[in-house]
């Protein structure tokens, strides 16, 4: 459903994403794991059609991701979501429904469902400018789901969510995936990837270092123990200057 084929993105001389291949199939929950500045957000923006690859291709549902058809398939939660300050949460959701050309009665029903799921009833009719970070985040999640996307792309979820909201969101990822949606989430938090993901892709410096299920990754790296060690091993290997330190030369 979501594909990157040799996708590369250069910002001037800097190569933020370097020949990245990635596929997320329907019904799969894929965690895109990497340290800060690894190129996760850039890759995700290419998938959502916000950036066009300098080389290679980004496709959703077999279509180029910048086409309006592809955008209809995607539900996107950016790392810094945007909400209209002067709209209420409900008005914002209605706007998204209309933008996706959903029949209004069906849309209205869907909005009610989502208000229920995300427990937003208390504040949904206030202006967004008065929301806290977590409330905003929940409205944005709901807006990414109103049109029943076939691919859900989430950049750094759970930032700013309290434990309860985080639980809701995590459950939601799983249920979306089980319902046949391709879910791609980027995160720098190992625990989330470990807890939720069917497959994990570890990126650093714009390159995919390893892809696979948790067990598969461990086996391939001949590595026992927590994901954290594996992650540190992989990402420090990709940094030439720090190799010595990671191999235990340093005290």
């Amino acid at each position, binding site marked *: *459903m979501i*594909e990157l*084929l040799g996708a590369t*993105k*250069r*910002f*001037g001389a*800097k190569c933020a994403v370097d020949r990245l*291949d990635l*596929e997320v*199939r329907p019904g799969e929950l894929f965690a895109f794991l990497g340290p800060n500045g690894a190129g996760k957000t850039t890759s995700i923006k290419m998938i*959502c*059609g*916000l*950036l*066009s690859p300098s080389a290679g291709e980004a496709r959703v*549902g*077999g*279509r180029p991701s*910048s086409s*309006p*058809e592809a*955008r*209809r*398939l*995607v539900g*996107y939660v*950016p790392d*810094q979501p*945007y909400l*209209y*300050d*002067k*709209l*209420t949460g409900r*008005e914002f959701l209605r*706007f*998204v429904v*209309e*933008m*996706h*050309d959903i029949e209004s009665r069906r849309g209205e029903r869907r909005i009610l469902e989502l208000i229920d799921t995300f427990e937003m009833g208390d504040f949904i009719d206030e*202006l967004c*400018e008065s929301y806290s970070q977590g409330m905003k985040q929940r409205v944005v999640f709901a807006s990414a789901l109103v049109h029943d996307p*076939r691919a859900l792309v989430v950049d750094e979820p759970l930032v700013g969510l309290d434990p309860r909201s985080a639980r809701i969101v995590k459950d939601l990822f799983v249920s979306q995936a089980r319902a046949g949606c391709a879910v791609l989430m980027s995160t720098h938090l190992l625990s989330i990837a470990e807890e939720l993901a069917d497959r994990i892709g570890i990126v650093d410096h714009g390159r995919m270092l390893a892809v696979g299920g948790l067990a598969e990754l461990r086996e391939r790296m001949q590595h026992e123990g927590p994901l954290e060690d594996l992650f540190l091993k992989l990402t420090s290997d990709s940094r030439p200057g720090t190799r010595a330190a990671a191999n235990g030369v340093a005290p």
Partner: protein
Amino acid sequence: MNLAVDAPPVTPVTPINPDRTARALRRLRWRLTVNTVRAVLHGSRLRLSMILGCSLVFWVGLFVLFLGGFEFIGLNDEFFHSIFEYLFSMFFLSILVMLFFSSGIITYSGLFQSREGTYLLSMPATPDRIFAYKFFEGVGLSSWGFFLLGSPLMVAYGLTIHAPALFYAMFLIYLAMFVLLAGSLGSIAAILVANVFPRRQRSVLALAVIVTIGVGAALGSRLWKTPGEALSADWLGNLQNRLAFCQHPLWPSRWMSAGLLAAARGQWQRTGYYLMVLSAHAALAYLAAAAVARDLMYRGYNLIQGGRTSRRRWGLQALDDVFHRVFFFLPRPIRLLLLKDLRTFRRDPAQWSQFFIFFGLLAFYFLNIPRLGYAVQSPTWRNLVSFLNLAVTALILSTFTSRFIFPLLSLEGRNFWVLGLLPVERSQILWGKFAFSVGISLGATLALVFLSDLMLDMSPLMIALHLAMVVVLCTGLSGISVGLGARLPNLRETDPSRIAVGFGGTLNLLVSLVFIFAVVTALALPCHLYYLGVENPESSRMALSHAGFRFWLGAAMAMGLLIGAAGTILPLRIGIKAFERMEF
């Protein structure tokens, strides 16, 4: 792994109806407007009435000015009438240029640099719909200023020549078309700039503005130097010749002025003809803009997003050391805060380029004072001009403090977790900003006023007086901007220019203007009266004798100092109080 071989089949998507997205965007605009208006109405009445009051005063002032002007020259003279056609063309031509720039800038930042633009691009709307949505927002904003400027002119004109009522309706229709045309051209330019010079938009803009100002200044000086006795038939003929360029039949401003003047005289056929010409071109321009947006907007967005530099910045450690040594008497955290502001200033070309352009232009003008012949004029004149120059310098400084100093604290507020945890008292932060503002502004303004006085050949006493006034004005303006900035912060906005044009910024500018006016008139008045007396000792009874001058000058200086102290300390105290109580 080669994914291309077993590429999954294309997922079917029901096509989206573009009219639906257009409608969704229109509704969005409508709801945003309704909610904003409602919030304004329910919010601070004071703010609303101040804004309305200011607009009204502005409108009535312009109206009276135009009405008086028209009655003075007498519009019924057929000869003047033709001159008016030229003047109106000129007026609309300058408006055309301003609308072109303002809508271009608004479109550029709205589409390519705002978070809303990014958000909308991730929605399944086609780029031309998104463009339309942002375009009408920008055009609405810029036409509002045009309306405020153009409507008093038109109403005054209509009243003087007893125009039919339909003329006023025609004005609105013409205005809409004119704005549409200018806005479309500006947007096309903005999108093209994004595509061709994605990393150079500021340089392109600066270059365009400088060229425009240059051309405008050249034209202005040509008009100014029209030979002949002012308002004589000869002079008017010459003026007409020199204005002929704006009567070119291809200028949209020409269509506007010809059509409106025809409407004012009840020549409906001509009115209709020019309306058709104007609206056809406006529609075509808008269509072209939408097509350009459809094909190039997405590309431009990508180029701009990729264009953010990740250039490494050098801290200039040596400079910092010098700074620490020179300002050893300030507490170290304050010095560090000052350094931070200085560094931000240095790295923000918008700030210092504006600073240098304005003060550079002033310096250029001051340097040319001898050539303008003021120096050979009477002392009264030179005195008047010297105070005027001082006032202009202060006015420019006040726009600068309103634009850059006032938003400083609002911007800090967003990062208050840094400042709040520093081992300094909050009041010291404010004093730091104050010192920063005074320090930056004092050097430039002192030099400028000194230059102006030298060129005008003023006496040392007057130079000293003026320099002292500059100090008072700088501290006062800095005090006002820092104090009000702390009292009326806008913690929501991240864009300093938007903070500056908000309520607090506007109030700050108004207070600054009143302050400058008070200080300058307090001192200019006795000096002026004294020089009047020196020039023609017997004629004027208002003039001051030497002894009287000494007394009144002393009184005025005391007064100026008092106003200066009040203007510095009062706002700062208000600001410090508010800042200490502020919760972030």
